[in-house]
């Protein structure tokens, strides 16, 4: 046995190294996927939630006006922005860009951050009505400059909360 180990020492170590590097490589890829998902995308305009929610204390529903009425919360149309930015901070570089969209009558193509597969029936309305705070799913929006995805929206996470709150947790609640 001892001779065997000595004779094939290098081969044994090479196999160990291969597994070691391979295992680490897989771990690296897994972490990378997670990070790529969590990394905030670059939006056409650097909209700061922090300035609007934290400093200006604007309520979420002012812009995301369908959150308590429909399945989707809705991204605000340019009109909503221009209600204030007709006159507010008009010399700021980002607002100059906003004004350009407005003048050219082009919509801003925001990069979508949260989405669910088609097989899932999810509605904001129910959750807002149940008094779930926006930050439960969307994180500390008030202190976030550039939004990223803070929740993975995995099934176990949904079900866990449903059970805890006593909400229905049978399949057809979400899979319709």
């Amino acid at each position, binding site marked *: 046995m001892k001779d065997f180990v000595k004779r094939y020492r290098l081969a044994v170590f090479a196999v160990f190294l*291969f597994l070691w590097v391979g295992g680490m490589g897989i771990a690296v890829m897994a*972490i990378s996927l997670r*990070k790529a998902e969590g990394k*905030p995308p670059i939006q056409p305009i650097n909209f700061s939630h922090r300035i609007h929610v934290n400093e200006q204390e604007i309520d979420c529903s002012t812009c995301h006006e369908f959150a308590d009425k429909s399945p989707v919360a809705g991204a605000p149309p340019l009109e909503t922005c221009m209600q204030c930015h007709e006159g507010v901070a008009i010399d700021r*570089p980002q607002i100059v860009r906003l004004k350009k969209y407005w003048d050219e009558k082009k919509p801003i193509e925001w990069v979508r951050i949260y989405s669910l597969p088609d097989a899932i029936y999810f509605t904001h309305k129910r959750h807002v009505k149940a008094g779930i705070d926006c930050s439960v799913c969307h994180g500390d929006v008030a*202190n976030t*400059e*550039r939004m990223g995805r803070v929740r993975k929206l995995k099934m176990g996470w949904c079900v866990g909360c449903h059970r805890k709150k006593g909400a229905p947790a049978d399949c057809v609640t979400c899979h319709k």
Partner: protein
Amino acid sequence: MNLIGRDILLPLPAPLAFLKVLLVASFLIHIVFVNIMLGGVFFGVLYRIVGRYKRDIFYDRFAREIVMTTTVTKSMAVVLGVAPLLSISLAYTKFFYAANGITAPYWISVPLIVITAFLLLYLYKFGWDTLGKRFWVHLSIGIAACTILFFIPFIFLTNINLMLYPDTWEKVSGFWSAITLPNVLPRYFHFITATLAITGFFSFFLFKYRGRRSSLSGNLKVSVTPDVRFYLRASKLGILWALVATLAQAIFGLINFFTLPDVAYSWHVTLLVLIALVIAGLVSFFLFQEYHSENSRYGLPIFLLITVLILIMGTMRHVVRENALGLPKQVLAENTEYYKTQLARFKEELPVVEGRPVTGKDLFVTYCNTCHAFDKKAIGPPVSYMREKYGTDKNKMEEFIENPVKVNPEYPEMPKLELPEEDIRKIIEYIYNP
């Protein structure tokens, strides 16, 4: 992002890209020496203890020879640290100084702490023989130096990490709270493991080289002298450290990667990590063979591979920094642009007030009145005396004011005023017609 503010409106002394290349390159050279110095002190303390308890003269000599190099490597580390420090101050001014400000008391005390540690290190090194009899005294000095030296990178690292995440500046309240940011401790352990690995490599190359020299200078007939045997064993110990630390580094590197904030990530990082992993695997393979081979053959590939590995790690550091500062730099640029437009508008709208033309009286009060009064003697003669002396010859008076000489023993010599001709004429007009 509130605290970013605007950039300083001063030109850089060199193109930004050049400063960044200089920063990455000079930092790598600096940090390798820091590693060797830190690891050298650590080995010097560790093997002093091991030597005593194992009662093996080998360890004591190993510790001693390593410690002897540390004062040289520490000087190299300090001198070579100037270039990266200046480059980062120029290339990332706002971010770097903001972080420095938040950790100020610790950041400013770095030189003091460093000097203390270096003095202790000198004492440890040069007291090896004289203080050596008082083992515990000597050892405590070594441990103190080692502890302080291991704390210093912590300050640098906290600072440099804090610099990358401006949205934490409002929440962080100083050095100790900046340490609790997610990536700081993993990064520190990643650094410490690298220190052990690089010092392992250094010991390997150092003792291999010394062994070769001693075998060449010694008697060729006696091929295995005690010296040669020591150096062989010492270089093997170096390899062992390098191998174990390199393998462990994969784990610490992974933890570091895991705790890296998502904003600092891009696929470039994954690519670099994977390449680094493969190279680390190759290095380990060669180290393993070197460890078991009778005569050293793998020095060159090991050296080349770790050089490439260090370059990759340095590049990765830069990529992470650029990723993390992506949005903050944009905010900084916009704030600066905004400031510039505001400034331009301010200047445009500022009502222009025409200045009153400078009169002879103004000039007289400014340049002459300190020494000359109208009717009484002061430091110089009174104006009435001048009028009397020159009469109507204003040119003569002008000549005198342009080139004053000592005339009157009562008064000191008048200094030359270096005024334009036009002003001198105005003064003379005023003297005659106040």
